[in-house]
């Protein structure tokens, strides 16, 4: 326990970094997810294929491989970002593919009649998507999107492997100094569980507020 209290500063920094990374990448991934899901259902065949290729590639590559490629290999062709930014970009791109698939599933749950009614009153594709389909489709998949956010939280720990000092790395660093693995790692594990619980509660509340009961 002393090991934890003596390094509260370091662990707190790690925790804050994890939370920051989670929030930033969730927002990025949501935006990307909506865009890619839109591409996948749009009337232009080429754009549909672009969306499909994006999802296929990003879902089938290990996140760690993407992080390593981005952080260690891209500098050789002159592309460098600060470490935190790199990690955020890669994780957002990766989770964006998963969110896109969840959102597309949501779009598919919206009744055909809704889309037909939207077209019948003269809405264009983007208008019917914006005002009719997405508001209903997104509400149908709040729970799955929450699960993806929890997966995202756990995946932010991989940023540790390329050098971002977030919660996992901070715990590891403290353990290397204090050599009290049980207390330190249990503390970090509890923090992750707590954060996941918060995300679960948040999506639960959102679901109750927003879901359309049919």
């Amino acid at each position, binding site marked *: 326990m002393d090991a934890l209290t003596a390094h509260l500063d370091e662990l707190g920094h790690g925790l804050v970094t994890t939370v920051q990374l989670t929030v930033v990448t969730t927002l990025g991934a949501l935006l990307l997810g909506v865009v890619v899901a839109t591409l*996948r*259902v*749009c*009337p*232009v*065949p*080429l*754009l*549909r294929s*672009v969306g499909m290729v994006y999802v*296929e*590639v990003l*879902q*089938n*590559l*290990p*996140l*760690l*491989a993407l992080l*390593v*490629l981005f952080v*260690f*290999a*891209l500098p*050789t*062709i*002159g*592309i460098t970002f600060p470490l935190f930014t790199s990690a955020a970009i890669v994780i957002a791109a990766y989770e964006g593919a998963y969110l896109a698939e969840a959102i*597309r599933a949501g779009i*598919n749950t*919206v009744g*055909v009649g809704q*889309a*037909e009614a939207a*077209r019948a009153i003269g809405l264009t*594709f983007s208008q*019917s*998507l914006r005002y009719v*389909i997405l508001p209903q489709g997104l509400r149908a998949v709040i729970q799955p999107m929450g699960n993806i956010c*929890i997966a995202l939280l*756990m*995946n*932010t*720990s*991989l940023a*540790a*492997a390329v050098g971002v000092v977030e919660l*996992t790395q901070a715990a*590891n660093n403290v*353990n*290397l100094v204090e050599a009290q*693995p*049980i207390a330190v*790692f249990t503390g*970090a*594990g509890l923090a*992750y*569980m707590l954060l*996941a*619980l918060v995300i679960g509660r948040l999506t639960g509340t959102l679901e109750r507020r927003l879901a359309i009961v049919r």
Partner: protein
Amino acid sequence: MNPNQQILFDVPGPRAQRRIRIATVLGALAVLGGLAWAVHRFASYGELAADRWQPFTTWPIWRYLLDALWNTLLAAAATAVLSAALGLLLALGRLSVHRPVRWLAGAYVEVFRTVPALLLIYVTLFALPRYGLNFPLFWKLVVPLVVSNSAAFAEIFRAGIKALDRGQTEAGLAVGLRRGQVMRLVVLPQALLQLTPSLVSQLVGLLKDTSLGFVVSYTELLYSGQVLASYTNLLIQTFLVVALIYLVVNASLSKFARVLQARNGRFTGRGRSARPDPAVLTPGGNR
């Protein structure tokens, strides 16, 4: 293509067709522009030179990478078998009639579903050796992955078992089978068949998880790529090739999962739609 995706637009008329053509041209220009920019980037840093790609046409390099792929598959297979077995036990535990068993299995699943695999790997790397548990390298990767993946498998199995019609269990009990027998003879064979696609997609996730061997320095694909890159100094080429290998293997597995899904989980045959409707065979319907 899924007909549902077509609900958002009608068969395009002349104006819509013109707009689609414009969007296609713009999209193509954007994609080509991106590619051209990437090629220019590679060229201006000299990474496009033939001698920087030529090693990847030689057998020794490929043998090294294929060896690494073999190690990746080995770790994935061990993780898959062990975590599926443990996951099944946990799922049965969560559905047990005994409260303590249910509680223990539930606690395990809830905890390890929300703790990152990397944290578990750090525990096996830095914590367990202090208590005399020093696994060989292979198991330092596989044990934490099993611990975290078994929780995911348990949730898949539990969902599958619960999704099966209750009438099946009740019928089994009614003909005098004991609970264990009902589970083994009636419920599991049907639930597992339904679950095959989800289990195969979980395999993709698991195979991706083995890339954590990078942290353990177990010579799977990603770590071997790192070793190769620091030896040959062909950083971006090596990691692109490694990514390509992952992509080919995982995309095939994903494709396999989709085929299974379309066939309703059957490895052979043409799927349920080609068979007589079960509702016809069982009077009173399946539900």
